[in-house]
């Protein structure tokens, strides 16, 4: 049963990865390239020129997008196997709750303090500090997601509407409070505010879409195969 979930998660990740790879190839690559050329002097190489050819960067980034979704899909499958009984909702809805929790944990919560940045961004903090901060924010995101689910489960027997409010409370609080208390750590001196906003929206929507696609593909695969029960699998292995 564990491997069935892992396999399904990887398949779902593959579906999302193909979509995200296409997105990288058609939207993100040209946009990042454009933003780079608009601003002079942005480069990672010390001597001002890029180490790797742009076409290589484009191809590897498409592959990276595919692998990223594949990785998320695998993690999603494993996490769903263990957490499914504790998640609210029934059937495929559980998958969407987990996808939302994953998105909140590894993307949204870190972004509330360290927003996604375009090439040429000026950073207040060094890389090491940012990594540590990122790790801390991922842990915080996990706590927020877990408390949200626990709050929902606790209130659910009394009232479903109230449970939705209780579950949304930790998330809404975090999204409202974190950006206001954290200082501005990333700025784009050479880009217009509108362009930066559009860029960030693109990043948020594309990452969110990966999770939605994974949950949807996973749910579809599960319906197609028929839901296996713990009992029949255990009985099959023990007898």
């Amino acid at each position, binding site marked *: 049963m564990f491997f069935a979930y892992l396999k399904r998660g990887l398949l779902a990740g593959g579906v999302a990865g193909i979509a995200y790879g296409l997105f990288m190839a058609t939207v993100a690559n040209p946009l990042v390239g454009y933003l780079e050329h608009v601003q002079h002097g942005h480069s990672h190489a010390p001597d001002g020129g890029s180490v790797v050819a742009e076409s290589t960067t484009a191809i590897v980034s498409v592959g990276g997008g595919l692998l990223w979704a594949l990785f998320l899909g695998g993690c999603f499958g494993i996490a769903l196997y263990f957490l499914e009984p504790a998640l609210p909702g029934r059937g495929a809805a559980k998958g969407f709750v987990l996808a939302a929790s994953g998105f909140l944990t590894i993307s949204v919560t870190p972004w509330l303090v360290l927003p996604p940045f375009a090439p040429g961004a000026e950073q207040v903090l060094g890389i090491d500090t940012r990594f540590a901060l990122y790790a801390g924010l991922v842990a915080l995101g996990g706590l927020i997601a877990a408390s949200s689910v626990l709050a929902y489960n606790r209130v659910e027997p009394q009232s479903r509407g109230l449970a939705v409010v209780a579950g949304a409370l930790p998330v809404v609080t975090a999204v409202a409070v974190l950006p206001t208390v954290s200082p501005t750590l990333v700025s784009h001196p050479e880009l217009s505010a509108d362009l930066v906003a559009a860029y960030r929206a693109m990043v948020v929507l594309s990452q969110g879409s990966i999770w939605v696609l994974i949950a949807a593909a996973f749910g579809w695969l599960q319906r197609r195969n028929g839901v296996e029960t*713990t009992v029949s699998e255990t009985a099959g292995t023990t007898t």
Partner: protein
Amino acid sequence: MTSQSDTVADRIETARAEIAPTTALAIFGFGVAITFTLLLLQEPLAHESLHNFRHAAGIVCH
């Protein structure tokens, strides 16, 4: 007991029965090996090649 009524503890129990410790160790070891290789490749070519992706995915390191 159906999959709707079991608990997280049941799932962990099932996984334990289903996956031998050596298998788990092998999978874990392989995962660590892959991560190690990736970290080894990280500087600087592979890292630089993933430049567009890192920006698009909103991943912190830069």
